[in-house]
């Protein structure tokens, strides 16, 4: 685990917003030379703080109008292997996120679909046929915002 100073936090916030910025631009924003900014970004990357960069796409403009969060409970725990379920669910292209969780459900899924009939197709043909799947709860996403997190 690495310690961050206020400038590191500002750099992380800036890269969360726009990861295409070069070290020189980041440096100019925070009063650092290009090499100093580059060293800080490298340190944050090497420490695993910045893992990947991700395209920020407007799903709706690309024809994906429906996002649904699913809570999934396995019906036959202990008998069916978790790996079977995980391997099968991960292979579904419409499944963007799979989290193993503790609580009311065993897994949290995020599903993207073109519209409600398309979601119904994914749910019936892909999700309900997964090995070991039991109770499923669906909540249709209405709005979403990502927060910068505790970067002071």
């Amino acid at each position: 685990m690495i310690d961050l100073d206020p400038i590191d936090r500002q750099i992380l916030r800036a890269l969360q917003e726009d990861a295409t910025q070069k070290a020189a631009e980041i440096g100019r924003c925070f009063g650092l030379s290009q090499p100093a900014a580059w060293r800080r970004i490298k340190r944050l990357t090497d420490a695993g703080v910045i893992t990947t960069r991700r395209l920020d796409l407007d799903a709706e403009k690309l024809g994906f109008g429906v996002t649904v969060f699913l809570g999934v409970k396995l019906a036959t725990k202990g008998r069916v292997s978790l790996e079977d379920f995980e391997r099968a669910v991960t292979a579904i292209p419409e499944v963007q996120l799979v989290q193993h969780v503790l609580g009311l459900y065993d897994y949290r899924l995020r599903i993207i679909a073109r519209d409600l009939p398309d979601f119904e197709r994914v749910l019936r043909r892909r999700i309900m046929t997964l090995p070991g799947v039991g109770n499923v709860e669906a909540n249709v996403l209405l709005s979403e915002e990502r927060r910068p997190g505790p970067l002071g």
Partner: protein
Amino acid sequence: MLDDLDRHILRHLQSDPDQPVARVAKAAGVPVATCYKRLDRMQAMGALRGTRAVIDWRALGYAVQVSLRISLDKTDPRAFDEFIAAARAVPEVTEIQTFLGRVDVRLEVIARTMPHYQEIYRDRILSLPHIADIEALMHVAAIKDSESLPL
């Protein structure tokens, strides 16, 4: 509107946003200039909003991640707005979503340790306005986290 070439370009780029545009153009079988033109156009129409760095909070010592599923007291018409405005002020909240379904709002909360989580939960979350019920799912492992679109 987007055509097949646009989708092709995005599909390649989202699999690895770090790759040079020249490689994306090659994979799509078009000149680099065409690829840039398409990317600029998709940016202008708002389909491609940008590229964001993903932070691994665990590397910063935030080992606890909890999904809080919240029902609000909907007898008050301002419940959603006031709840969300107050939730934004909690630094450990990393995502806020609203839903149609059994759950009204979901908050993703991160904490360094379980005692730290308990402190955030008691002092910051339970004091948020208009909460009728809360259910927590504790994150154990991420099996898949791509957020890519099946283009």
